[in-house]
């Protein structure tokens, strides 16, 4: 769980586009429907009926195990999707990437360190569904943070730019006031 600082507020929160989880789940849906349809079809067919009657126990056991596997895999995918998140606060950008069940990668960039932001929306589907990749160039140790499949990426870029500008101009005016010294 990410702990926010006292003066920190979340400006924007983005999960990966729903297309990601939908694409990953397609195979699971096919894998789910196929044996169920086969089982129902077999019950309607005479020769298959005797086979089903003979092996009913094994079929039920196998079907139950197969559906349990698919169900568990779906929840692993969903958890990965749900825990993959991009947070933009008034102080920093936090990109959390969940890779499988046992790998979690958290990249954090101070808004003041942002040097350049590039948005890539490549392909028909990303253009139609409005999602893409954001490249954030930084002055920090991690030179570039790349966030894939972000919905409405231009909106994210605008928010980061606006608050980066606010933060740097506030820092600049504080610095300039400090250099002027006390007024006579």
């Amino acid at each position, binding site marked *: *769980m990410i702990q926010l600082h006292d003066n920190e507020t979340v400006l924007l929160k983005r999960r990966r586009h729903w297309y990601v989880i939908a694409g990953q789940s397609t195979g699971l849906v096919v894998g789910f429907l196929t044996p169920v349809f086969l089982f129902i079809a077999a019950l309607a067919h005479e020769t298959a009926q005797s086979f089903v009657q003979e092996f009913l126990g094994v079929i*039920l*056991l196998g079907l*139950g195990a197969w559906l349990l596997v698919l*169900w*568990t895999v779906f929840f692993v995918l969903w958890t990965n999707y749900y*825990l993959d998140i991009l947070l933009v606060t008034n102080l920093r950008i936090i990109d959390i990437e*969940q890779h499988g*069940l046992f790998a979690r990668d958290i990249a954090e960039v101070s808004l003041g360190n942002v040097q350049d932001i590039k948005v890539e929306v490549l392909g028909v589907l990303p253009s139609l569904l409005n999602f893409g990749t954001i490249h954030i160039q930084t002055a920090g140790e991690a030179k570039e943070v790349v966030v894939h499949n972000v919905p409405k990426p231009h909106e994210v870029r605008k928010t980061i730019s606006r608050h980066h500008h606010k933060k740097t101009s506030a820092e600049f005016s504080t610095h300039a006031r400090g250099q002027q010294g006390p007024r006579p």
Partner: protein
Amino acid sequence: MLNIEEAFIETIFFILAGIVLLAFSIVSVVLYHHWTAYGVGKKQVKRLRTVYFGVSAVWIALMAAGTLTILLS
């Protein structure tokens, strides 16, 4: 009398079902840990738990029905 080939297939299925149940238990513990530790809200964890374990129970019941059918035949 029980056919040897049939008995072999059933044994294989019992072993596979055991492996699936073991894997399911381990993955469930890990998933539950992720939901509670990494910021899925309390209400949502409750809803997730109900859906995930509720539907899983249906598949496990199907497996149990299959096992009973094999054992009673």
